[in-house]
C-alpha cells in the first residue's frame, strides 16, 4: 500500500452474458468497475455465483467483452479484435479455480513447461523457468518433474497449476480461490510464498477468495462483488470495518475483526480494525498497558 504505481488493469462498467441468445442465457456481470495498480495486491470477494471468476477471465482475454463496458489491460483495450491476446496472456497469468482443469499434460514437468514452450524459449531456458516456478510454489524439482499429473493430490495439483502459470513469468498473477482444498499449514505457506512473489519479484496479485481471514492478511485493497456488480471497494481495513454491510452481501469478516467488533460493543474500542492476529495482539497489549 506504499506508493501507487500506474494502473495495469482497468475495468469500467463491464457487462457479460453467458450463452446469450440461447435458452441457457445467464447474465453474469451487470456493471463491474475496478482497477488494479502495478505492484499491489487486490482482493476480490463475493458470494458464490457473484461473478468473480467471470471477471478475472476478462483480465487475460479468455472472455472478450462484446457488450457494454471496457477492459483495458496494460494499455490495451481488450475488445480490440486486432489485439494479439497471447501477449496479454503472457503478462497476465490466470490460475483457474479448479486446478485439475488446468493440467492437461501427462507429466508435471511437461505441464509446467507448456507455457515457456509456446513462447518459443530454448530448452535450457525452459528448464530453468520450470525449476524456478516449482521452487516458487515449493515443489521439489527432481521429485516432482516426472510424476504423472493425474496421480497428484488436490493440493499438489494446485501448486503445479500455479507453477505452470508462473513459468510464463507474468507481471500480474491472478489466483482464483487457489488455497481451497489445502491444509491450514499449506495455505499459510502458499500465502507467504505469494506474498514473497509480490514483495521480492514485484508481481501484481489479484486474489479471489471466500476466506476472509486470508484476504484480510494479504490484500491491500478489496473489491466486493455481488450479483455481477461492484458493491464496495476500499482498503482491507475500510471494508472489514463494515460487518453489517458485508453481511448483506452474504459475507463475513475475519475472526480477529469479529473479536474487535465484539470488544467495541462491550465498550472497549480498538484503535484500528485489526486484520491479522498479530495486529490484534499488538493493539490489545496497548489497551491493557495504558
Amino acid at each position: 500500500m506504499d506508493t501507487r504505481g500506474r494502473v495495469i488493469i482497468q475495468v469500467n462498467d463491464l457487462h457479460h452474458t453467458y450463452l446469450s441468445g440461447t435458452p441457457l442465457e445467464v447474465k453474469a456481470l451487470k456493471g463491474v468497475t475496478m482497477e488494479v495498480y502495478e505492484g499491489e495486491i487486490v482482493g476480490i470477494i463475493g458470494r458464490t455465483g457473484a461473478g468473480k471468476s467471470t471477471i478475472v477471465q476478462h483480465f487475460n482475454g479468455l472472455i472478450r467483452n462484446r457488450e457494454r463496458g471496457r477492459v483495458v489491460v496494460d494499455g490495451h483495450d481488450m475488445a480490440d479484435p486486432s489485439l494479439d491476446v497471447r501477449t496479454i496472456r503472457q503478462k497476465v497469468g490466470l490460475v483457474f479455480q479448479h486446478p485439475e482443469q488446468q493440467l492437461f499434460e501427462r507429466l508435471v514437468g511437461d505441464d509446467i513447461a507448456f507455457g515457456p514452450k509456446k513462447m518459443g524459449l530454448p530448452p535450457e531456458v525452459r528448464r530453468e523457468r520450470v525449476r524456478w516456478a516449482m521452487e516458487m510454489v515449493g515443489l521439489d524439482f527432481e521429485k516432482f518433474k516426472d510424476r504423472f499429473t493425474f496421480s497428484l493430490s488436490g493440493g499438489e495439483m494446485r501448486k503445479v497449476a500455479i507453477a505452470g502459470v508462473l513459468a510464463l513469468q507474468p507481471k500480474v498473477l491472478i489466483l482464483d480461490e487457489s488455497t481451497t482444498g489445502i491444509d491450514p499449514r499449506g495455505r499459510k505457506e502458499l500465502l507467504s510464498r505469494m506474498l514473497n512473489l509480490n514483495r521480492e519479484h514485484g508481481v501484481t496479485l489479484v486474489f479471489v477468495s471466500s476466506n476472509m481471514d486470508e484476504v484480510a492478511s494479504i490484500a491491500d485493497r478489496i473489491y466486493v462483488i455481488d450479483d455481477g456488480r461492484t458493491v464496495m471497494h476500499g482498503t482491507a481495513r475500510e471494508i472489514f470495518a463494515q460487518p453489517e454491510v458485508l453481511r448483506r452481501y452474504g459475507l463475513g469478516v475475519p475472526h480477529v475483526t469479529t473479536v474487535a467488533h465484539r470488544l467495541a460493543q462491550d465498550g472497549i474500542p480498538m484503535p484500528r480494525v485489526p486484520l491479522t492476529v498479530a495486529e490484534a495482539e499488538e493493539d490489545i497489549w496497548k489497551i491493557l498497558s495504558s
Partner: protein
Amino acid sequence: MENFEFLRNVTIGQYFQGDSIIHRLDPRAKITILLILVVVNSFILSFTGNVLLLSWCIALVLLSGISFRFMLSGIKPALPLIVIFALMQLFFYGDAYPPYGMESVTYWRWGIMSITNGSIQLVIVTLMRFLEIFFLVSLLTSTTTTTNIAYAIESMLEPFQRLRVPAQEISLIGTIALRFVPIFAEQMEIIMKAQASRGADFGEGGVFQFVKRTRQMVTLIVPLFVDAFRRAEDLILAMDARCYTGGRGRTKIVRFHMQRVDLLFIAFTAVFGVLIMVFRNHFPI
C-alpha cells in the same frame, strides 16, 4: 476472435424444461413418432415429399416452444463437413442418380466431374433429409429428460427380453452417451481455456483451414479422452456405491401410461407417413 463457448452449439442431448404438448407426450410415443418419421425419411427422394416431411418436423419444433434459432445453431460446428459432402455429391454424383421426376440434363462436364440436375437434386434432398433427422433427434432430447428416454427405450425393448436382448443395458448405454455430449462440450471449453491461458493459440485458422484446426484439435483430444475415462471410472464407482446391479428386478417410481393425446399423435404421424410412402412415386417433382 476466439470464442470458447461450445455449449452454445450443442443442441443434441441438452434438455430444456418446458410445458408444451411435446414435452408432455409419453416418451414412448415420442420415440415411436421419431422411428416412423425416420423410416419415411429414408424412402423419400423427391422434392415434394421432403418439403412435406420437413414442414411436419418444423411444425413439431414450433409446437415444442424450443427456440428455432437455437436449434439451428447446433448445425454450425458441422457446417464445414456438410459443405464438403455437398460439393462432393454435386460434382461426383452427376451420373449416379437419375433425377426424380425430371428429364436428365447435364449442365457441365469435365473429366470425371459433372453437374447434372440429378446431382443438384441430390444435394438439396440430402440437406433436407439431414435437417429432418437433426430436428427430430434434437427435439426428442430437448423435450425429454434422459431418465424418461431410458425408461422409454427399456420399456419398448421389453418384449425382446425373451430373446435375451439386454434391454436395460442398451437403454443405459444410450442415455449415458447422450448425457455425455454436453459434458464433453463443457470439458472442451475448459481444456481450450487452460491451454489458451498459457499461450496456446486458437484464435487464428478460419473454419476452412483444416490442417491448422486439425493440428490444434489433436492437442485437445488426448486430454479430452483422459478426462472421459476418468469420468467413466467415477461413474462406475458412483453406480456401484449406490448398489446398481443392472436390469433385472428393478421397479420404477414413475410409470407412464399412454394417454389419448399420445395415441392421437402416433396415429396422425402414422397416417401421414403411410400417405407419403404410398404416394411417394406420384409426386410431380
